[in-house]
Every structure is written in structure tokens, then in C-alpha cells.
């Protein structure tokens, strides 16, 4: 009996060791592009362009990052500011509209509620790629094309179906008794939402905020179409122009510095708030 147990345990240990070995190899493969991009970004500019390339930097400097600030008018700093502005407006707008809307759909009865809810959610099935042409025409007509706020308005709309869906579920999960007593005490609906419920649905708000940030920070096609003036480029568009040599010969060290600048905010936010991000992914996937 005991020897059987020992054999079984040994087998388990061996099996786990094999699994760890595979996991470590796979993890190395997944991290390799990011690690080498970082290493390239801290080489000296000549070393970053060396043919054939060096594996490790001989000296760690941040010259490539400095170089990136000289491209175009305002360099990378301006484009980081542009992307930050668009993302911030998108996050704030998405939170405001989804919270109000989610509360409205979860707790109130009014004529046409079901139709409006289905209408909002049904846009999930329509790819935004198929409506970019009229959006461009419309934004041009109201003078909001090539405008960072115009871009943010479009991003907010793309976020709303998911935001509404998630916030409605968050409000539905809050026991109704909590707000009833407050309403009986004469609080207005808005005050109940603002002073009482907001704290209870905070996890939902964090989740939609992360999605709004990551999606607007990374979005490429709409920004490429709507932002026609270099000064208004978001970071991904700016970097794609660095890679095609718009700002002179392609500087691979500077490009990888730009890739790092773009990656770091999303990765940091994801690592800090992973739990909320995954909740959103599961919530969306399980229900759809």
C-alpha cells in the first residue's frame, strides 16, 4: 500500500515537473518579444541599428526615447498627450453614460425600455469597421473630424453596448431594499445613485473604465481615418508613421522605444487591476 502511494506521489511530482518545464518554455516564448523590444530600446542609437543586431545592449542609455521626442512637431510627448486626452475623455464619458444608462435600464420601468435596450445591445453585432465612412462624413460636416474630442465621442459610442450591459447587471445585483428606504426618506433618484449605489457598483465601473482605456489607447483604424493632421495623431498612428519613415530614415531603436511607451500604460493597468479585467471578460463571454 505505502509503496504504491510513494510511486503515485513520485509520478505526480514528475508530472508536475514536466508541466512546469513546458510552462516555463512557453512563458519565455511569450515574453521574448517584449523583453527584446525593451532591450533594443535602451541600446545606444547606433547599436540599435547594428547589422547584425547584438543580443544584449553593451550600454544602457535612454537616447532612443530622447530621439523620439524630436520627431514631427512636438514629438512623442505631443502624441502621448493626444492619446491621453482621447482615452481620458473616453473613460469619463463611458463611465458617466453607462452608469446612468445601466441604472435606468435596471431599476426603472418606462415605455419602450425593452426596445431601447435591445437596440443598444444589438450594436454589439455590427462591426464598427462597417460604419466608419458615414462617421467620417458626419464628423466632417459638424467640423469634428481631425479633432480629438470627435474621436473620443466615437470611441465612447463603441464602448457603450458593453458598458450598459455590464452596469445594468451590476445594478441588478444590488438588493433593491437598500435604495427603497432612501427613496422613502425622500431622496431623489439621482442622489440615491450618486450617494448610495455608486460605491456598491464600483467593481463594475472599474471594469468598464479599464476596457474603455485599453480600447481607446490602442485603437488604430478609426484614429488613422479621422486624424488627418500630424499634430493630432494618436500614439499608434504616430508610431506607424515612424515605422514607414515619415520622419526620415527608419530608426529601429526609437521605434522600439515608442512601442515601450505605448505598451507600458496598458500593461501596468492590466497587472494592477487584472481581477476586474477578467470579470468583464467572463461577464461578457458567459452571457453572450
Amino acid at each position, binding site marked *: 500500500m505505502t509503496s504504491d502511494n510513494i510511486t503515485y506521489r513520485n509520478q505526480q511530482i514528475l508530472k508536475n515537473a514536466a508541466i512546469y518545464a513546458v510552462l516555463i518554455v512557453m512563458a519565455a516564448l511569450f515574453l521574448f*518579444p517584449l523583453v527584446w523590444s525593451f532591450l533594443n530600446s535602451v541600446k545606444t542609437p547606433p547599436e540599435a541599428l547594428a547589422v547584425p*543586431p547584438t543580443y544584449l545592449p553593451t550600454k544602457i542609455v535612454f537616447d532612443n526615447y530622447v530621439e523620439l521626442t524630436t520627431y514631427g512637431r512636438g514629438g512623442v510627448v505631443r502624441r502621448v498627450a493626444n492619446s491621453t486626452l482621447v482615452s481620458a475623455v473616453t473613460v469619463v464619458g463611458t463611465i458617466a453614460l453607462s452608469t446612468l444608462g445601466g441604472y435606468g435600464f435596471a431599476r426603472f420601468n418606462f415605455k419602450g425600455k425593452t426596445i431601447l435596450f435591445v437596440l443598444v445591445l444589438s450594436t454589439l453585432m455590427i462591426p464598427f469597421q462597417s460604419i466608419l465612412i*458615414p462617421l467620417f*462624413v458626419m464628423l466632417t460636416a459638424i467640423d469634428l473630424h481631425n479633432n480629438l474630442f470627435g474621436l473620443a465621442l466615437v470611441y465612447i459610442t463603441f464602448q457603450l453596448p458593453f458598458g450598459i450591459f455590464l452596469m445594468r447587471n451590476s445594478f441588478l445585483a444590488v438588493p433593491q431594499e437598500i435604495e427603497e428606504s432612501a427613496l422613502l426618506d425622500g431622496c431623489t*433618484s*439621482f442622489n440615491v445613485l450618486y450617494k448610495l449605489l455608486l460605491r456598491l457598483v464600483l467593481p463594475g465601473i472599474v471594469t468598464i473604465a479599464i476596457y474603455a482605456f485599453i480600447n481607446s489607447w490602442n485603437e488604430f483604424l478609426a484614429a*488613422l481615418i479621422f486624424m488627418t493632421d500630424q499634430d493630432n495623431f494618436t500614439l499608434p498612428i504616430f508610431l*506607424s508613421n515612424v515605422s514607414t519613415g515619415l520622419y526620415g530614415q527608419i530608426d529601429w531603436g526609437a*521605434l522600439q522605444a515608442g512601442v515601450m511607451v505605448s505598451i507600458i500604460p496598458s500593461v501596468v493597468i*492590466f497587472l494592477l487591476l487584472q481581477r476586474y479585467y477578467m470579470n468583464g471578460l467572463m461577464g461578457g463571454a458567459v452571457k453572450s
Partner: protein
Amino acid sequence: MASSTAMTAARRETGKSSTWQRQRSRTGFLFVLPTVIFVGVFFIIPLLMTAFMSLHDWPLFGAHEFIGLKNYSDLLSDRQFIKSLDFTARYTLIITPPIFIVAFILASLVRRNIRGIGIFRTIFFLPVVIGLGISSLLWVWLLNDQVGIINKILLDLGAITKPQLFLARPDTAMNVIIISVVWKTVGFTMVLLLAGMQAIPNELYESAEVDGAGYFAKLRFITLPLLRRTIALALVLSVIGSILAFDQFYIITGGGPRNSTISVVYWIFNNSFTYFKMGYGSAMSIVLLAILVVLSALQLYLLRDNSDT
């Protein structure tokens, strides 16, 4: 929902019920109004306008002119459009299996509750939060023939004798795209499959083991059947994403070599925003929309049918 609540009862007693209800329904409507306006103005109207514009000759400047279905009939003789449809279909068929298989293997590995597994889950998922455009810029450099580290590694390992121009030939250009997209998106599919796997009761595996079932028997008779819904969902999302592919072709191949990697969205983009034939681009958008609607309907139907049997 209201009838059983204490509040309604209280309001009814005071005789204010109907006024209060009316007020509440107006408040609710006001809460959802901003969302409805946004979705209406920036989604529903553009959607209708796509259909409207597709019936017009619509240049960037100057008047547009109604031309009926001419844009659609022009599509039939647009050789690049047919080529793009064909390429997008082939791309979708080529990219879906690697994404799914790698995701399935990763999910099978990280579903075990062993020490430190969370770190591995995070590492495999990490590229998902990076933009596809940015990850494409990363891979363009990694696979560059002159400064790319991958050519250097392959040379040092003796796998190749001289640097490869991966992007110069259609087949190797496609491999570059596949590797970069799998790296970037596989974590998402992995997490979907992982959630599905974690919902399978452990007792099923335990009793199968008692009956002497090996790994592949458990996979075939427990995991795969119970994961059917999740698998279908993962495939639908992956296929839809591939049909809409743009960033990776725009950045990595620029549509080349010899226009061999121009996807449908890329061709719509070129026509609408390079040649400014916006009516024509709208007609293509409607075709794309129709393909996607048919596909999701078909696949959702299959999903439902499977789960009943």
C-alpha cells in the same frame, strides 16, 4: 417587479402611486437618454447612412449623385475586391486553427491548480492588452532581415545560412502575420476555454479515471463535449476578428507583396480614404456586414443545435 415591494405599497396607501410611477418612469427615461442619443447618432444613423451612401457616387468633395445599384454591380468586376474576399477567407481559415489549438493547449496547462499558475496565466494573457497595431510594429522589427533578432538567432543556430526577407514572399509574409497574431490574441481564447474547463465538475474526471480512462479518453468523452458551447463561442469570436483584420496587414505587409495581403477592410479603407470613392466603399461595407451577419447567425444556430442534442 414593483407590486411586491414595500415602497409601492407605501405609496399606494398615500394615494400618490400613479403620479409617483409616472415621475419614476420619466426619471428612468432621462437616465437612459444620453446613451440612446449616442448610440442613435454615432451608430444607428451611420449604419443607415452606409446603406444610403452605397447607392450613390459619393466623392470627398462636390455633390453626390444617386446611381442605384451601380456600385454593387461594379463590385462584381472589381478584381481586387474578389481577390480581397478570397484572401480574407483564406486568412480566416489559416489563422483560426493555430489560435484555437495553441489556446487549447495553454488552457489545458494553466487549468491545473498548481503553485504559481497565476503568473503563467498572466504572462500568456499579457499580449492581449497590447494593441494589434503596436504588436505589429514590434514583430516587423523582430523579423526584419537586417536588424531583426529572429534572423540573428536562426543564423546563430545554423537553421538558416543567410538572413531571410520574410516579408518579401507571400507564404513567409503570411507566416509572419500568423505568428504575430497568435502571440497577440491567443490569451483571449485561452481565458474563454479556461473558464469553460473550470466549470466542468472534477468528479467527472475522477470517476473516469477510476474506470481507467487515459488523457485522450477524458479529452474526447468529457472535456470536448462539455466545452462545445465555449468552443463555438471562441471560434465565432476568432472568425469574426479575422474577417475584420486590418492593422496587421496595414503595418506588417502594407498589403504586399504584390497586393497579395489586402484584406476586405483594407480594400474598403483604400477605396474610401485613399481614392475617396466613399459610395463604393459603403457598398463594400454593406457586403462585409451581410457576410458577418450571415456567419454569426449560422454559427449561433449551430451552437444552439449542438447544445440540445
